[in-house]
């Protein structure tokens, strides 16, 4: 690790994330409806990790579908205030959302893993074996 200061690490991470803000990687291939939680896409060697900040979701109402290069994420977020309350401030959004992404690589649909922890959704996608680049030996 080139940096050991934890604060420095966060700053470097923030800078790295900023420089890929709306990069052309997904071009115009993301579409969806509803107030979708923002997501970040990372590469980890050949694999792809999609991370979304999605606090207060119900795990069993999250739906992830993968087909070829397309991944669809849908869910519902409910905000419940209870009966007989007076609202002072309301900033959290709620409702149904769905979104699909067209990835530039093909995904092995059988090896998709998803994790939901501390309000963060992480989807781990493995690149399909037949889509991986092969290095050619020069004879």
């Amino acid at each position, binding site marked *: 690790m080139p940096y050991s200061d934890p604060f420095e690490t966060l700053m470097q991470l923030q800078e790295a994330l900023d420089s890929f803000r*709306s990069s052309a990687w997904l071009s115009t291939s993301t579409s969806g409806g509803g107030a979708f939680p923002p997501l970040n896409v990372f590469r*980890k060697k050949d694999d792809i990790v999609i991370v979304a900040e999605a606090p207060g979701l119900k795990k069993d109402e999250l739906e992830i579908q993968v087909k070829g290069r397309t991944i669809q994420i849908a869910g519902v977020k409910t905000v419940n205030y209870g009966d007989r309350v007076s609202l002072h401030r309301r*900033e*959290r959004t709620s409702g149904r959302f769905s979104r699909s992404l067209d990835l530039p690589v093909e995904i092995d649909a059988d090896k998709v893993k998803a994790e*939901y922890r*501390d309000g963060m959704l992480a989807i781990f996608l493995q690149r399909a074996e037949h889509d991986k680049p092969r290095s050619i030996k020069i004879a």
Partner: protein
Amino acid sequence: MAGQELEVQKKKELASQQEKTIPARFYMPSTDIFETGDALKVVMEVPGVPKDALDVKIENDVLSVEARIETANYNGLEPVYTEYSVGHFARSFTLPEQVDQHNITAQLEDGVLTLTLNKRPETKPRRIAIQ
């Protein structure tokens, strides 16, 4: 659905009067505040924050929350497309007089922090029985 304007929630950067001593950016957690008969509830969204990285303090009638994310989770990940930045969360509120500062409870579940600020018994609404 293609071509439809995509509405992605925006994260608000913290614009606090007190500056932080670390160089990284902080974010303001989206917060709902509502009142029930005997408590004031403050519900904050702090995704990515584990229980042990949460600080809730009361000082001079100000309730302040600081929630730190885990940056180690991003080791080995190379961003290719991003829509939000990450950072610690911080926000503070001045408490109204009717809150009993010794009777505040906090609960964290799926990135949602719920603070229950119980009201002082003498400020609770009372129903007067008519004889």
